[in-house]
């Protein structure tokens, strides 16, 4: 091994004798590094491994490979996997600390049942499961089967989602169930389904590197998906980077063109860009004629979105908009990417489709470096879209279709009469159902609605109204678990196995490398136990372990666009660095090893019956609550820092992560607005909306723009302010627009008691 350590001269520098200067000893040796085997490089004692194995990360949808250092069978630490095709040896701080958060004191170690005195007391699994079935069946008997609902997550494995979906819907007869993916990906899924005929993000991360023009709409990958940003920086084509975002985020700063538009004027801007592109002659006529339908309607629709009209709505100079269109028109390979700025909007589906329209009409799809690409949120949001058996019948089938019900019933060997003929309620309808008294019991799995759901005070009150609230989680301290009648202690990522599907449709395996604390069980095992206690042994006789369920999933996927019948098993997924769907038996028989980076629609064939993609357009809707004299500022919410994840149930448990973000809630405010309201930097301010109030420290920064404030979603109280309104098509909450006012508080900063909860 050749170092770059300079050659030491023969005569060493004069050193003090050892008795006077201890250059070695126990403390020095504590930091001694050893050459690591297994490709680890120099490794500290605590990380030395007798083996390594790769697991896909359990935070966001990037789906990085993490190299788990294993000693005596158990994980002692991790480093990013150097050869995993997603992250290429890098990880964000959350991934680096993925194991540390398992060691927290507030892990759920035994089932907790609320006693008559209102205290949550430890009980045996037997008592917990008996109570679970007894109460759920009792409520169903008294109020009808539909009086029980479940709220699931994008954080558990596909196999667990499938188990939960089949168990709850076909086994327990629960019609209404939804996932927290409603809060992040419903819009993208709905938009794709209508435009492409299937919820099919077409891209691979390689497209980040192949584009010569990347357009980011309502996305800040530098903070939300730093490892995807890594891929953007590896692009060797000196690409144009256009960022459409009201804030001048890190991503916007790195862009070649930033369009700091007025919040929620994105649809107008996109239609105006579409009009510009058509006028510039950027339309790929052949592609549009052969592979799409609805172009004439689109052309007519966007005709009224002139530069002047868009400039007035967005607050952008007309030539800036035109310049963006010109860059898109001039580039050969344009990829358009969107995230929560689009998805979490009351007209998000149409906005996403306006992005898809631009890709379609310029023919920027199916080729390297192109695509209308939704960047997903959670590690398994995509899994939820395919396998949760909520919005779609399991495997992205249709509840309404007789054939689909029949197919699924046959594969699962259940009576097709057990399968509901329509999808259940979306998340917001379930919450309304609780308010109306129609939902009496709720089973919440690995999500935290008491923090994350829009107009939170209302949700907390409603959860309190339930007759029976069951929370299945790895921690007992989440805001929702605190309200639970029964807590089922769950094993976490790293303590169980299964597959996640990342943003680019890649199935990856995560593995059981740690023992969970106490009696915590994998969600998979909890579902098995519930099935057995409910009396459904026979229905789930084949559902013995995640690998077995993966085989069932393969059968269900047969013939679907998301066909995975060609994937052999977990070992192959592991070997190949994950495999993107589709990978059918036919694919597998033609190529021995799956190609690492594959994109959809290279043949221009979409998933509608006529194989054509649709241009979908709609009228602009108005914001339900705009700033006025009383509430003069617009509140935007979103991700604060890389090291914070959602409601912080996990990221707040790592001491090193806690050092990487403001522990007290902070709000970004323009210095000129601050002067107007007499607020100084660092000062505590009271933010009020018509629904609630929040205290946060003012962070004066011009990047947020005048008349707006930005409050990260990770702090417990943020959603006390937000206005409960939704996209009419996807039912996704519109978190990023409501009217607020602020006033300075006397103290300089918040007292430590109001810190973000660990």
């Amino acid at each position, binding site marked *: 091994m050749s170092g770059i350590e300079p050659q030491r001269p023969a005569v060493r520098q004069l050193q003090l004798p050892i008795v006077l200067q201890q250059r070695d000893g126990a403390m020095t040796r504590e930091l001694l590094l050893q050459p690591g085997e297994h490709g680890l490089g120099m490794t500290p004692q605590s990380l030395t491994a007798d083996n390594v194995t790769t697991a896909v990360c359990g935070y966001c949808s990037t789906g990085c490979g993490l190299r788990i250092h294993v000693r005596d069978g158990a994980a002692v630490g991790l480093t990013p996997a150097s050869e995993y095709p997603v992250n290429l040896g890098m990880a964000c701080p959350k991934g680096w600390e993925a194991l540390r958060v398992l060691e927290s004191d507030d892990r759920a170690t035994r089932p907790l049942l609320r006693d008559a005195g209102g205290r949550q007391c430890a009980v045996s699994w037997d008592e917990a499961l008996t109570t679970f079935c007894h109460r759920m069946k009792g409520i169903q008997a008294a109020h009808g089967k539909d009086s029980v609902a479940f709220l699931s997550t994008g954080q558990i494995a596909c196999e667990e989602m499938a188990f939960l979906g089949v168990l709850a819907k076909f086994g327990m007869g629960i019609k209404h169930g939804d996932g927290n993916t409603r809060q992040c990906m419903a819009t993208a899924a709905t938009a794709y389904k209508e435009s492409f005929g299937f919820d099919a993000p077409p891209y691979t991360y390689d497209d980040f590197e192949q584009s010569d023009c990347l357009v980011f709409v309502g996305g800040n990958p530098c903070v939300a998906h730093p490892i995807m940003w890594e891929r953007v*920086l590896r692009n060797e084509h000196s690409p144009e980077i256009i960022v459409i975002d009201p804030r001048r985020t890190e991503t916007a700063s790195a862009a070649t063109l930033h369009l700091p538009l007025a919040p929620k004027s994105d649809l107008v801007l996109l239609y105006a860009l579409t009009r510009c592109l058509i006028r510039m002659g950027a339309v790929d006529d052949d592609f549009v004629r052969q592979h799409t339908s609805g172009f004439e309607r689109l052309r007519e629709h966007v005709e009224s979105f002139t530069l002047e009209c868009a400039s007035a709505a967005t607050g952008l100079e007309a030539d800036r908009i035109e310049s963006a269109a010109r860059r898109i028109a001039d580039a050969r390979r344009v990829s358009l990417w969107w995230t929560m700025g689009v998805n979490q909007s009351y007209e998000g589906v149409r906005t996403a489709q306006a992005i898809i329209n631009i890709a379609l009409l310029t023919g920027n799809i199916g080729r390297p470096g192109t695509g209308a690409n939704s960047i997903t949120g959670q590690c398994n949001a995509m899994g939820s879209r395919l396998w949760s058996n909520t919005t779609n019948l399991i495997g992205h089938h249709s509840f309404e279709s007789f054939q689909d019900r029949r197919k699924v019933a046959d594969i699962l060997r259940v009576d097709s009469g057990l399968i509901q003929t329509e999808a259940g309620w979306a998340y917001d309808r379930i919450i309304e159902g609780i308010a109306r008294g129609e939902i009496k019991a709720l089973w919440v799995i690995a999500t935290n609605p008491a923090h994350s759901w829009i107009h939170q005070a209302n949700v907390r009150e409603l959860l309190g109204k339930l007759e029976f609230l069951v929370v299945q989680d790895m921690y007992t301290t989440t805001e929702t678990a605190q309200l639970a009648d029964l807590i089922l202690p769950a094993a976490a990522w790293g303590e169980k196995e299964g597959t996640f599907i990342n943003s680019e449709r890649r199935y990856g395996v995560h593995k059981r490398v740690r023992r969970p604390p106490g009696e915590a069980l994998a969600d998979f095992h909890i579902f098995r136990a519930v099935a057995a206690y409910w009396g459904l042994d026979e229905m789930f006789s084949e559902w013995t372990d995640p690998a077995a369920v993966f085989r069932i999933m393969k059968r269900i996927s047969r013939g679907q666009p998301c066909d995975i019948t060609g994937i052999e098993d977990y070992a192959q997924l592991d070997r190949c660095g994950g495999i993107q769907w589709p990978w059918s038996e036919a694919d597998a028989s033609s190529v021995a090893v799956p190609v690492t980076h594959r994109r959809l629609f290279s043949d221009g064939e979409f998933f509608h019956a006529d194989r054509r993609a649709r241009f979908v357009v709609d009228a602009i809707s108005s914001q339900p609550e705009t700033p006025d004299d009383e509430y003069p500022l617009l509140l935007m919410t979103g991700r604060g820092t890389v090291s914070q994840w959602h409601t912080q149930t996990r990221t707040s448990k790592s001491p090193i992560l806690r050092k990487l973000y403001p522990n007290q809630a902070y709000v970004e405010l323009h210095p000129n607005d601050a002067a107007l309201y007499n607020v100084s*930097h660092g000062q505590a301010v009271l933010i009020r909306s018509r629904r609630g109030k929040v205290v946060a420290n003012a962070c004066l920064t011009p990047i947020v723009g005048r008349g707006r404030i930005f409050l990260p979603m990770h702090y417990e109280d943020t959603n006390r302010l937000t206005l409960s309104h939704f996209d009419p098509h996807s039912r996704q909450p519109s978190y990023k627009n409501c009217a607020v006012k602020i006033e300075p508080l006397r103290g300089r900063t918040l007292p430590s008691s109001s810190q973000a909860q660990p």
Partner: protein
Amino acid sequence: MTSIPDQLDRPFGLIEALLEAQQQLTAVEEFSARMEMATQNLPLATRHKPAQTSSYRSLLPASPPGPNQQYAFEVDLDTCSGCKACVVACHTLNGLEDNESWRRVGAITIGGSVPETKHVTTACHHCVDPGCLAGCPVAAYVKDPLTGIVRHLDDQCIGCKYCTMMCPYEVPSYSQRLGIVRKCDMCHQRLAVGEPPACVQACPNGAISIRVVESDEPVGERLVAGAPHSSLTRPTTQYRAHHPPGVGIAQDESEDEPADAHWPLAVMLVAVQTSVGIMAFERMLSNISSMSLHPSSRIDGFALAAVVVGLAIVPLHLGQPFRAWRIFLGLKTSWLSREAVLLGMYAGLLSLIILLSTGWARLLLPRVEIAFQPGLMELLRWATLAVGSLGVISSAMIYIATGRELWKFSRTSIRFCGSLVVCGAAWISVISSLELPIGEHLRLLALVTVAALAAKLSWEWSTHLKSGFVKHEDNLVRRSRSLVNGRLATFKWLRLLTGLSGGGLLLVASTGQLGPIGTACCAVGGACLLTCGEVAERLLYFSSVVYPRMPGTLR
């Protein structure tokens, strides 16, 4: 609730089986066979090759530093997206404590027509003139002559934390568990085998690299906005950005936290200054014939007691007191070394004076008559005072040498000399009131004390105790005052109350109206309160210090 419907199975043994299965770890058996096979056929050298190699070749220099060159971090601020993976990688790949990392990332807000947030990652700057090294009293720092890496010798460190004051960049950080500081060593063990430091290999954007720089390269004014003056230690890190350096405002600008109050140091300093003050007044008074004060064993004993109390408390400040015997190793550069040696000598000389003047020596050394010549004792007393004074000067220089504006010469020496005068005068008046009939000299000494105290308090009031807005005030002074009047207000009131009440009691005592015992009690109480007041002043000195620092974030 209505009837309990159908049967509730209690599946026998299921839970036990699931709990048992849950504790089995099989991932390695299931998946590792392939990896073993994949690597087994490779030659040993390749098997041990780090898998990460491909990503970092361009981040290391092609050749090692030559003469007058050294390694340095280079950071591309335009490429850094603020993910902070470098911080966690440093923590993980160096096997550090739970919340320990040798890298930090702060933020700078840049205004103007195109505002932006810049993230600034910072670790040790492996300075050309490292303050930590110069300040260390026990030679626990070395600057590698070939690589320029400033290394800390963990087994040599006594945990005095002086390097945390001498380093303008807050790099060395103290570990409670170990009782020492630790700091970035540029992963020298990795560099030695051709691997880059943890932060370099973990940056997704390749924003941090290692470069070879010239040691005598001129330094800029500051590394980034708000950072300390580079002239203090000549840091080698190079920050590259399209913005000129120094543009913007750190996100934590003016967001000051109280610093460590270092109570053992505060007590030690006041005790030592009291002791030297007593000796100084003794010299002064015994050379003014009208004062009829004679050197006495009580005065010597008192001075010795004070310095011994001070020196005895110091180990409470050290994380590794048993290693402190090497404290003389830093004499060449470290004021802390000098202080320790001088004060040790001072205590020794005081002991010698007591030994000689109480007659104990006559028993031990009956034949050495020369030692008892009065002239020689005078000389010894002067010498003791000189050594003690040099000790006090060294104490002051410890803090002045940090280059911190609020600890500059004038602000430090007024406090230290002030304490010496106030406490010296107060205690000598107490001692003399025990020895002599209450009279003019007590009144005079008490008045001297109160006058000195009044002068010192009014100086303190005007420089850092008063609240409210002051025009054209220095930024650091304003921030320090805001700490004193905010989070440190308790210390402030403690300082004022003890000082004023102590002075008041001494004045009362000086009237002599309370009878001998009352007067003595009053004088002793007054002196005690005054001394506590000086300690409170010193606690504020430490805890209210603010200084330019690398950008941080809101807390």
